[in-house]
C-alpha cells in the first residue's frame, strides 16, 4: 500500500493543513476498483446472500436466502429456452436482467399452465414430426413477438391485429394459432433450458468457486488491512509523531534562541558597562563585536535593525571608556589592566591606533602633571594660565617644594611609561615565536617597538622641558645655599632617573643645571667676595690662636674631605672607582623605584633630616668614626694651644699665623668644595672662584701693607711677584678693592705695624700652604685637561706668595732704621783719611742701636704672635737688605775717598754685620755682598772696573758714578767710564 494513502486514511486530521495540502494531489483511491470488481456480477451477491425466507413455488420448500432459492429453482426449469436470448453480456443493465427474469418466469408460468392443461406438453419424447411441425410453427411466429415485453404488449398486438371484421372463427383460428405458437415456443424454451442446464450448473459451480475465492480474498484483504492499520499505528505514526515533535522542538528552540539573542542584544549596553567596571575590556569588546555580528545576522528582525545602530553607539562609547582607562595608565601603569586593554584593542584591530593614542595621552599627562604639580603653590589659578606664567608666580619660598612636587609627579608619568615599555618588551618576546609568520603583525609590532623607544626620549624631553621652564622662571641665583643644593639634588636625581629611563644623559638639563649652577655660584661668590672685603676691612690682623698643627682639615667644612688628603691614598683612582660604583649603585637604586608602586626617588627630599650627602648619594664619611678618638677633642679645644704662643721665636719650627679672615676664607673654600662635590661638572669654575678669594686676600695684604713702602721697590719684587700682582689687579677690577683701614696703629714702638704686617703676610703664606694641600684633591676633581690651570695657579701664585714678605717687611724695616739720620751721620765721616782707622765710625753704633731697638720691639711682637725662624729671618733679612742699601747709599755719597777711607768702610760694615749677626741670629747676613762688592770695586783695575760698571745693574748710576769718581784718578778714564754708565742707562 502507498505511504501517502495511509496518511490519508489514518491520521490525516493530525497533520498541519499545509502538509495535507502538499500531499493531497498524490493520493489515488484504488478502492473504487475494488468495488467495481464486486459489481462485475450481474446479480448483487450481497443481496442474494442477504438473509430472507423464500418459498419455492413449485415444491413448497423454504430457503434461508434468495441465492439458495434460485439455485433450487433451476431444478424446476424444464422449459427449453433455445430461442431465448439468454446469453446476455455480463454487463447488462437492470432492465435486461428484468427482461430475462420476466421471460423465464413467463415461460415457467406457461409451462405450469400447460400441466394443468393438455398433457403431453411437458413430455420429452417429442416426435420428429412434431419437431418439424413445431419448427414450422415457430417460423410462423411474427418477429414482433420477440420484442422485449417492455416495448411490446403481445396481447395488445394480437388484439390490434385482429381483422376488422371479426368473426368467431377467425378468432378461434387465431387463438388456436396463437395457442399453438405459444405451445411450440414454450416447448422450445423448455427444451433449450434443459439443453443449457448442464452449462448453467457448471457456470453456477464456477460462480460458486469464484464466490468462495472472493470471500477468501476479501478476508485476506480485511486481515491485511487490519495488520497494516496496526502496523501504521504502532510504527510509522509514532515515529512520525516523534519526528514532528523534534521538529517542533527545534523550531521552538530556534525561536527561543532568537528571543535570547534579542534579550541579550537589548542588555548589551548594561553588560558592557558591567564588564568594563570589572575591567574585563576584552570581554566587553568581544561582547559588542559578537552582538554586532549577531545583529547583522539577524537583520530580519525589525527590533534588531534598531539595535544595530545602538550597538555602534555602545561600541563607540566603550572605546571612549577604554581610552579613558588607557589615559589613566599614564599616571599609574597597571600591567594586568593594560594587558586587558591591549587584548581589547587587538580585538578591535586598533592596536596601533591605541598606541598612538597612548602616546598622546602620555604627552598630555606630562603637561597635566606639570600643571597640577605647580598649581597648589600658586593662588588664583585659572585653567587658561600657561604653565610658564604659572611657574613665574610660584613664590620663591615654596619653589623647592614645588620643584620636588613637579619632579615627583613627572616621575610617576615616566615610571608608568617605563613599565609600559618593559611590559611590551616582555610580552613581545613571548609572543614573537607564535606569530612569526604573521608579517603584518610583525610590522606593526616593529612599529610599536620603535614608537616606544622613541617615546622614551620624547617623554623625557617633555619632562626636561617642563622642569627647565619651571627653573628658568625662578631665578635660582637668589636662593639660599641650602635650598639651592636641595634643588640641585632634586635635579640631579632627575637626571639619574632619566639615565635609567631612557639612557639619556639628559644634556639639556645637565647643561641647564651647569649654567644655573655657574651663575648661582658666581652670584654666591659675589656675596662671599663682598663679605671678604668686609672682613678684610675690619680685620685687626691679630693672630688667631690656633694649634700649631692646625690645617684646614681641622675645620668642620673640610671634614668630608679629610679622606682625600691621606698621604698614601691614591686619590685619583680611589675617587674615580668610588664614583663609578656610585653611578652603578644609583642606577640600580633608581630602577628599583621604577618597579615600585608607591615610592618615588624624590621622597627623601621630604625628609627634614636629609643631609646634602644623602641627597647626592655620596658616601657618608666613614673615616670620621675611625679618627673620632682624637678629633672631637681637638675640635673642642678649637685648635688652640696656648703653650705654643709662649715659645720664643727661634725655637718655633713652624708657626701658624692665621687671621680671622684667613679662617673665613678657608671656610668659604670648604663650602665651595662642597659645591663641587655636588656639582663635579663645574668643579673648575668653583675652583677658579676659590682662587679668586685667595687672590683678593693676597691683593689686599699687599695693598694694605706696602702702600706705605718708601724705598725703591725694584729689587724687592721678584718678577713672578710682579706678574702675579699684575694678573690680580686685572681680575680685581671687577671687585672694588678694599679701602685701606685707618684703624691700624703704625707707630715706631710697634715697628710701624710690623706685627700686623707679619700676620697679614704670614696668614696669606699659610693660606697658600692650605691651598697647596688641596691641590691633589682639586686635580682629582677636574678633568685631565684642566689640571694645567691648577698647576699654573700653584706655580705662579701659591709658590710666589712668600715673595710678598720682602716688600712688606721692608716697609717696616726701612721705617724703623731711620735712613735719614743714618745718612747724615755717614756723610759726616771723612773717607779721605790717609791711615786706616782702628775704630769703626760712629754711625755704625747708631745703626746698631737702632737694630737693637728693633730686636727688642720684635721680641715684643713675638710675645703676641708666634714667629718662626722663617719669619724672623725674613724680617731680619729685610733689615739687612735695608742696611746694605743704606750703606751703599751712604758710601756713594762720599765725594772723595782714599784707600784708607775704603778700609774704614770695610771696617764699618764688618762691624755692623757682626753686630747684626749677633742680634738677628742671621748667619751669614744676607745681601752683604751688595755692599762688599761695591766697596771693593774701588780696587779693581780699569778694565775690570769697566766690566763691573757695565754688568752690575743692581747699583744705580749715582752709585757707579761715585765709585768711578773715587776709583779713577785718570780724568780720561773717569769720563769714559761715566759715559759707559750713562750709555748703560740708555741701553736699558
Amino acid at each position, binding site marked *: 500500500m502507498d505511504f501517502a494513502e495511509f496518511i490519508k486514511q489514518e491520521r490525516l486530521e493530525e497533520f498541519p493543513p499545509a502538509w495535507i495540502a502538499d500531499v493531497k494531489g498524490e493520493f489515488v483511491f484504488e478502492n473504487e476498483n475494488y468495488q467495481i470488481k464486486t459489481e462485475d456480477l450481474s446479480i448483487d451477491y450481497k443481496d442474494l446472500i442477504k438473509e430472507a425466507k423464500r418459498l419455492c413455488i413449485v415444491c413448497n420448500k423454504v430457503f434461508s436466502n434468495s441465492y439458495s432459492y434460485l439455485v433450487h429453482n433451476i431444478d424446476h426449469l424444464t422449459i427449453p429456452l433455445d430461442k431465448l436470448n439468454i446469453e446476455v453480456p455480463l454487463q447488462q443493465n437492470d432492465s435486461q436482467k428484468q427482461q430475462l427474469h420476466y421471460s423465464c418466469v413467463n415461460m415457467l408460468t406457461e409451462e405450469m399452465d400447460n400441466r394443468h392443461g393438455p398433457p403431453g406438453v411437458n413430455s420429452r419424447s417429442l416426435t420428429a414430426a412434431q419437431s418439424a411441425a413445431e419448427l414450422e410453427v415457430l417460423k410462423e411466429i411474427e418477429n414482433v413477438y420477440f420484442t422485449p415485453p417492455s416495448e411490446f404488449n403481445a396481447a395488445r398486438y394480437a388484439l390490434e391485429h385482429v381483422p376488422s371484421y371479426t368473426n368467431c372463427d377467425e378468432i378461434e383460428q387465431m387463438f388456436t394459432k396463437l395457442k399453438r405458437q405459444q405451445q411450440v415456443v414454450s416447448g422450445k424454451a423448455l427444451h433449450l433450458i434443459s439443453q443449457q442446464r448442464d452449462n448453467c450448473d457448471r457456470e453456477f459451480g464456477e460462480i460458486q468457486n469464484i464466490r468462495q475465492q472472493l470471500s477468501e480474498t476479501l478476508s485476506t484483504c480485511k486481515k491485511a488491512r487490519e495488520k497494516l492499520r496496526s502496523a501504521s499505528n504502532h510504527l510509522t505514526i509514532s515515529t512520525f509523531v516523534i519526528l514532528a515533535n523534534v521538529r517542533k522542538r527545534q523550531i521552538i528552540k530556534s525561536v527561543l534562541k532568537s528571543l535570547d539573542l534579542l534579550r541579550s542584544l537589548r542588555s548589551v549596553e548594561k553588560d558592557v558597562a558591567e564588564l568594563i567596571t570589572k575591567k574585563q575590556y576584552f570581554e566587553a569588546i568581544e561582547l559588542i563585536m559578537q552582538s554586532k555580528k549577531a545583529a547583522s545576522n539577524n537583520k530580519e528582525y525589525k527590533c534588531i535593525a534598531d539595535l544595530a545602530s545602538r550597538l555602534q553607539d555602545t561600541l563607540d562609547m566603550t572605546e571612549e571608556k577604554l581610552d579613558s582607562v588607557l589615559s589613566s595608565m599614564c599616571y599609574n601603569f597597571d600591567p594586568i589592566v593594560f594587558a586587558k586593554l591591549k587584548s581589547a584593542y587587538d580585538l578591535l584591530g586598533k592596536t596601533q591606533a591605541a598606541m598612538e593614542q597612548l602616546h598622546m595621552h602620555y604627552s598630555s599627562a606630562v603637561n597635566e602633571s606639570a600643571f597640577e604639580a605647580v598649581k597648589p603653590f600658586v593662588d588664583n589659578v585659572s585653567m587658561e594660565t600657561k604653565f610658564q606664567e604659572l611657574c613665574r608666580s610660584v613664590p620663591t619660598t615654596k619653589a623647592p617644594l614645588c620643584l620636588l612636587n613637579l619632579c615627583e609627579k613627572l616621575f610617576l608619568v615616566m615610571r608608568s611609561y617605563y613599565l609600559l615599555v618593559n611590559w611590551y618588551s616582555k610580552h613581545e618576546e613571548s609572543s614573537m615565536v607564535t606569530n612569526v609568520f604573521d608579517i603584518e603583525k610583525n610590522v606593526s609590532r616593529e612599529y610599536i617597538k620603535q614608537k616606544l623607544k622613541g617615546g622614551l626620549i620624547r617623554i623625557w624631553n617633555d619632562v626636561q622641558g617642563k622642569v627647565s621652564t619651571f627653573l628658568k622662571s625662578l631665578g635660582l641665583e*637668589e636662593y*639660599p645655599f641650602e635650598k639651592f643644593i636641595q634643588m640641585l639634588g632634586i635635579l640631579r636625581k632627575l637626571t639619574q632617573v632619566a639615565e635609567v629611563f631612557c639612557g639619556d644623559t639628559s644634556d639639556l638639563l645637565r647643561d641647564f643645571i651647569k649654567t644655573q649652577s655657574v651663575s648661582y655660584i658666581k652670584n654666591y661668590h659675589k656675596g662671599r667676595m663682598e*663679605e671678604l672685603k*668686609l*672682613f678684610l676691612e*675690619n*680685620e*685687626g*690682623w*691679630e*693672630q*688667631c*690662636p*690656633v694649634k700649631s698643627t692646625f690645617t684646614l682639615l681641622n675645620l*668642620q667644612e673640610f671634614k668630608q674631605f679629610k679622606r682625600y688628603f691621606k698621604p698614601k691614598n691614591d686619590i685619583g683612582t680611589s675617587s674615580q672607582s668610588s664614583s663609578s660604583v656610585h653611578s652603578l649603585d644609583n642606577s640600580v637604586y633608581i630602577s628599583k623605584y621604577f618597579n615600585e608602586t608607591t615610592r618615588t626617588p624624590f621622597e627623601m627630599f621630604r625628609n627634614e633630616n636629609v643631609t646634602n650627602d644623602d641627597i647626592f648619594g655620596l658616601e657618608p664619611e666613614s673615616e670620621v668614626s675611625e679618627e673620632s678618638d682624637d678629633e672631637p677633642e681637638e*675640635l*673642642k679645644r*678649637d*685648635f*688652640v694651644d*696656648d703653650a705654643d704662643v709662649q715659645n720664643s721665636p727661634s725655637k718655633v719650627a713652624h708657626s701658624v699665623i692665621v*687671621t*680671622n679672615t684667613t*679662617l*673665613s676664607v678657608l671656610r668659604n673654600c670648604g663650602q665651595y668644595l662642597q659645591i663641587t662635590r655636588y656639582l663635579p661638572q663645574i668643579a673648575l669654575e668653583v675652583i677658579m672662584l676659590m682662587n679668586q678669594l685667595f687672590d683678593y686676600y693676597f691683593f689686599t695684604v699687599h695693598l694694605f701693607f706696602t702702600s706705605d713702602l718708601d724705598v725703591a721697590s725694584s729689587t724687592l719684587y721678584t718678577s713672578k711677584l710682579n706678574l702675579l700682582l699684575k694678573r690680580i689687579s686685572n681680575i680685581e677690577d671687577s671687585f672694588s678693592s678694599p679701602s685701606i683701614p*685707618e*684703624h691700624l696703629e703704625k707707630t715706631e714702638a710697634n715697628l710701624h705695624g710690623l706685627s700686623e704686617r707679619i700676620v697679614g703676610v704670614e696668614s696669606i703664606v699659610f693660606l697658600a700652604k692650605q691651598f697647596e694641600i688641596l691641590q691633589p684633591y682639586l686635580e682629582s676633581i677636574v678633568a685631565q685637561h684642566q689640571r694645567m690651570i691648577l698647576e699654573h695657579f700653584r706655580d705662579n701664585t701659591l709658590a710666589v706668595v712668600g715673595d710678598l714678605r720682602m716688600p712688606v717687611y721692608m716697609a717696616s724695616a726701612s721705617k724703623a732704621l731711620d735712613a735719614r739720620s743714618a745718612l747724615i751721620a755717614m756723610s759726616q765721616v771723612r773717607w779721605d783719611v790717609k791711615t786706616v782707622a782702628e775704630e769703626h765710625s760712629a754711625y755704625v753704633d747708631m745703626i746698631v742701636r737702632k737694630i737693637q731697638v728693633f730686636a727688642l720691639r720684635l721680641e715684643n711682637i713675638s710675645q*703676641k704672635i708666634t714667629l718662626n725662624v722663617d719669619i724672623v729671618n725674613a724680617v731680619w733679612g729685610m733689615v739687612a737688605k735695608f742696611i746694605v742699601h743704606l750703606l751703599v747709599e751712604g758710601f756713594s755719597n762720599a765725594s772723595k775717598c782714599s784707600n784708607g777711607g775704603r778700609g774704614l768702610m770695610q771696617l764699618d760694615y764688618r762691624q755692623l754685620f757682626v753686630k747684626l749677626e749677633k742680634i738677628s741670629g742671621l748667619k751669614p747676613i744676607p745681601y752683604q755682598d751688595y755692599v762688599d762688592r761695591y766697596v771693593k770695586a774701588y780696587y779693581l783695575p780699569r778694565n775690570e772696573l769697566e766690566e763691573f760698571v757695565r754688568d752690575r745693574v743692581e747699583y744705580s748710576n749715582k752709585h757707579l758714578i761715585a765709585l768711578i769718581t773715587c776709583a779713577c784718578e785718570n780724568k780720561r778714564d773717569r769720563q769714559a767710564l761715566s759715559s759707559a754708565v750713562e750709555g748703560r742707562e740708555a741701553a736699558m
Partner: protein
Amino acid sequence: MSESYEYLFKFLVIGSAGTGKSSLLNNFIGNKFKEDRCHTIGVEFGSKIVNIGGKSTKLQIWDTAGQERFRSVTRSYYRGAAGALLVYDVTSRDSFNALANWLRDARTLASPNIVILLVGNKKDLEESREVTFTEASQFAQDNELMFLETSAKTGENVEEAFLKCSKTILAKIETGELDPERIGSGIQYGTGTSKRLGAPKRPTRTPSDCACRV
C-alpha cells in the same frame, strides 16, 4: 635680592663662651638651630636687611668668639660698632657674672655711645635656670641697658632683640644723639638714601671733640 637700604648698622654680639651667640645670629639670619655647634673661632659674620620704622636697614653683625683666648682677635672688631647684643646664658651664673667685664670692653673699645641690649639666652631651658629675670633686669637698669630674654632654639624674642636695638639706634640718629657721618660711629648711609638725615650733625658735636682737633 635688593641690596638697597638706607642705613647700615654695625652690630656686635658679645658674651661668654657657650651662651649661644652664634645660635642667636643664625636664627636671626634664618638658619636652622643646631644642637651642638662648635665654638666660634675668631669672629663670624652675618648680615640682614630689616625694616625698622619704614626704613630698610642693613645690619652688619659680627659674631665674636666668647672664649678668652680669642679676646685679642675679637677686640679689633669692637671698634665702631653702633650696637651690641650682650649675651649671657640664663642657665649659667658664670656667664652672668662676666657681664661687667664684657660691658666695660664694649664701652671702651667700641664707642661710649654704643647701644647695648642685654640678652638672657636659653630661656627655653627653664628647669635649669640660674639667673632670674628680675636679677638681670636690675643689672640692665643699673647699667642703662635694654633687656630681653630669648631662646635661639625656639626663636623666641630673637628678632625682637635685634630690632629693638636697631630701633633705639635709629631713634638716636633721629634725635641727633648719634651722628652717622662721624667716623667710627658704626653707622653708614646706604645706597637707598641721601644724607638728608645727617643735617643736625654739627650742633651736637661736643666741645671736647673740637679741642682735640687743635
